[in-house]
């Protein structure tokens, strides 16, 4: 039964010892979450008992205290842009009766200007039969322990393309392209191979299709005649529907994101709130009014500043608005100051970290255009 090692591991460490190490390590993962839950379990019992006592159990509502305030569905088209521009102006005019901008003055100016430009420009309209094409190019760095003194890391790129029909109730297409090529940034490919580290071998191209963009995971619906429910939209799964439901009032939006971060078991650390803004924008699916509101929501995050006026991401130049995450990592949004466009977001390491040189660790670049057919790419 020891034949499942292909590597030199068993020569040095017995299988039993490895099993013990694996078990011990598994118990460390997310261990904090598994402690001190007695109160939550008791609260769940109280809810269950109360619900059983007062209603038909089969129709019990799922407790909804976590749901953020839902804004009304956004209106379509130019009327919405006008209404929202008015709403944004109203918020600015109030001068922060409840919340004061907390970012640096330069960041507040840049973000507000980008928001104003975004709302006025809106998104290019779609003619019947046309599709909005959203391409997000993600570069991520994977680190693992190398054979020598330095750790190994490579960068890998994923391109996710989404086609959205002019009537979003119709079929959407998502195409994910994961090349197997890797760029080694510390240690060589030979060193990497020598560790026996099992590198993922993705299928080159995978496609998913679904009306309304309700894409499901590869295993969802696999069993039981497909009665597994769709993923629940939320900050952790920002579907188009969820994005549509978010408040457009920047203060409410900031509050909703702040609450989500805190509910997620974290303190509402400013860098985590900023990270949630990054994630929502990085979907590429946020419509213009939501992008504008997200820019303005970021003005309420302490520590946000203009960190670079000339950043190049995926061939486009923009202004980087950033926040320090820790001693070596800075998170950034990259905006085009000329038109308010969201160019992308990235995570930059400012000093050598675990053998990986300073530079961009993760990035997402977003490009949007209009095409005439499902699956067609812009010229």
């Amino acid at each position, binding site marked *: 039964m020891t034949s*499942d090692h292909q590597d030199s591991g068993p020569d*040095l460490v017995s299988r039993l010892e*490895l099993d013990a190490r694996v078990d011990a390590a*598994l118990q460390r993962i997310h261990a904090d979450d598994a402690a001190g839950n*007695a109160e939550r379990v008791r609260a769940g019992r109280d809810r269950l008992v109360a619900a059983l006592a007062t209603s038909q159990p089969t129709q019990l509502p799922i407790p909804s205290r976590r749901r953020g305030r839902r804004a009304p569905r956004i209106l379509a088209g130019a009327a919405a842009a006008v209404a929202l521009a008015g709403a944004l102006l109203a918020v600015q005019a109030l001068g922060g009766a409840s919340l004061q901008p907390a970012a640096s003055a330069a960041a507040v100016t840049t973000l507000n200007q980008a928001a104003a430009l975004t709302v006025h420009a809106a998104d290019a309209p779609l003619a019947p039969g046309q599709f909005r094409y959203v391409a997000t190019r993600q570069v991520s760095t994977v680190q693992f322990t*190398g054979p020598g003194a330095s750790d190994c890391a490579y960068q890998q790129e994923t391109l996710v393309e989404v086609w959205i029909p002019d009537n979003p109730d119709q079929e959407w297409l998502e195409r994910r392209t994961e090349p197997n090529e890797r760029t080694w940034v510390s240690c060589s490919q030979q060193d990497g191979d020598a560790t*026996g580290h099992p590198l993922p071998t993705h299928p080159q191209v995978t496609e998913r299709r679904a009306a309304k963009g309700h894409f499901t995971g590869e295993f*969802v619906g696999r069993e039981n005649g497909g009665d597994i429910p769709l993923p629940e939209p939320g900050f952790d*799964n920002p579907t188009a529907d969820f994005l549509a439901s978010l408040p457009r009032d920047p203060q409410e939006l900031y509050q909703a994101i702040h609450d989500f971060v805190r509910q997620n078991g974290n303190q509402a650390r400013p860098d985590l709130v900023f990270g949630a803004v990054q994630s929502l924008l990085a979907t590429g699916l946020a419509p213009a009014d939501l992008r504008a509101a997200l820019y303005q929501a970021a003005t309420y995050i302490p520590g946000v500043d203009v960190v670079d006026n000339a950043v190049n991401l995926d061939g486009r130049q923009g202004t980087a608005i950033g926040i320090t995450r820790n001693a070596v990592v800075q998170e950034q949004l990259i905006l085009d100051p000329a038109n308010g466009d969201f160019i992308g977001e990235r995570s930059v390491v400012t000093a050598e970290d675990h053998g990986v040189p300073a530079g961009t660790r993760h990035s997402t670049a977003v490009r949007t255009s209009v095409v005439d057919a499902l699956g067609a790419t812009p010229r």
Partner: protein
Amino acid sequence: MIAPTARAEGAGLGGLDGPESLVELYDAHAAQLYNYVVRRAGPAVADDLVSETFLIVWAQRARFDQTRASAKSWLFGVATNLLRRHFRAEARRLDAWTRELARQIHVEDVGARASSAADADALAGELAEELAKLRTEEREALLLVAWGDLGPSEIAEAMGVPAATVRTWLHRARSRLRNRAAATTTARTTRSER
């Protein structure tokens, strides 16, 4: 208020005839179920998902076959099914955990800590990455053991597959984690010998 009755734990749901038996079921298994769910999906998801699990079990009690499975297995099966809605969040949580851990190890300076603790943390980070890459059913089986404290036959009941299939999943999952641990150990041993 619901009066507790003297039904034995794990008696199954064939006798789940009144709301009080659902509360009993909750008292018997909710804490263990919660810890499994919260580790996989996080606190934001766990409260609602555990509640939903019990409501689904209640709604479907007529379909429950007590000769085939224990109530506990059924609960974990329903919860595991519901967790598939959150597979993206789970992958992101593992990734965030790994990144945060790498940051802490870096900030605290590995040399300053007990090396066994540092090694265990480093391995945990690598395994978290590996977990995210496992096939869904292999990860589910592995974590039902590691975090849910279920045995292979209970997992078979929970997931409605033969026990042999579960053992195959567990074998594959553990082989991958063991290989990863072996590669890490080799690298670290090599390093310390230099």
